[in-house]
């Protein structure tokens, strides 16, 4: 039985453009998520610092979007030969795919659209990792979505005092 419970045959994943359907009517309880889609995302795309993909439902409504960028999880201090961690991992940086933004249309929540978007991002990251290094899908979560990423999407969580938390999905099977 699938964990996805709506008809995704009516979804088309579309690279954001000025003509993408439903951008102006996108609604979310967090205004910065709406602003990002309607104002910042195209700019980021032009600057090649973030690419946004929109889940368009039935050729009418933008029901969700995800913004992706290359990223690395970095160690704060320069890695030295004395570091114990070098026995397990040779560098001070972990190449990753960043989920910069992710939001679902307010009227279409609880339809596993977020899960669909993360699933696709993981698939993309696995494909990229065949061409260039990419070990995790990573993000910096808002507090209210941490349990969703953790429980539903099996992301790991590093909580940090007074700094942005990091969540990640390890792309490597044992």
């Amino acid at each position, binding site marked *: 039985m*699938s964990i996805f419970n709506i008809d995704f045959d009516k979804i088309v994943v579309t690279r954001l453009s000025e003509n993408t359907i439903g951008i102006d009517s996108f609604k979310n309880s967090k205004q910065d998520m709406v602003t990002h889609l309607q104002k910042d995302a195209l700019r980021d795309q032009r600057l090649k610092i973030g690419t946004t993909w929109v889940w368009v439902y039935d050729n009418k409504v933008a029901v969700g979007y995800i913004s992706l960028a290359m990223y690395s999880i970095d160690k704060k201090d320069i890695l030295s030969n004395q570091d114990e961690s070098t026995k397990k991992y040779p560098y001070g940086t972990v190449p990753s795919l960043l989920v910069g933004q992710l939001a679902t249309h307010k009227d279409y929540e609880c339809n596993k659209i977020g899960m669909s978007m993360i699933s696709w991002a993981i698939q993309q990251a696995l494909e990229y990792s065949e061409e260039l290094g990419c070990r995790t899908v990573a993000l910096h979560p808002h507090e209210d979505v941490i349990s969703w990423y953790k429980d539903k999407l099996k992301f790991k969580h590093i909580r940090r005092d007074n700094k942005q938390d990091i969540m990640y999905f390890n792309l490597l099977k044992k």
Partner: protein
Amino acid sequence: MALREIQPLDDKDWNTLIDDLEKGQTEEQTMFLKEALNHAKNLKISR
């Protein structure tokens, strides 16, 4: 989340990350991944 807010990991958090990466996916992550990839491969993409 804005890129400017991202900060590197101190030793403790870095070691936590590396220890975990070394273990590879948990069983439940692998199960989720299988379901996720099954879903993703059926999505229609317009580039």
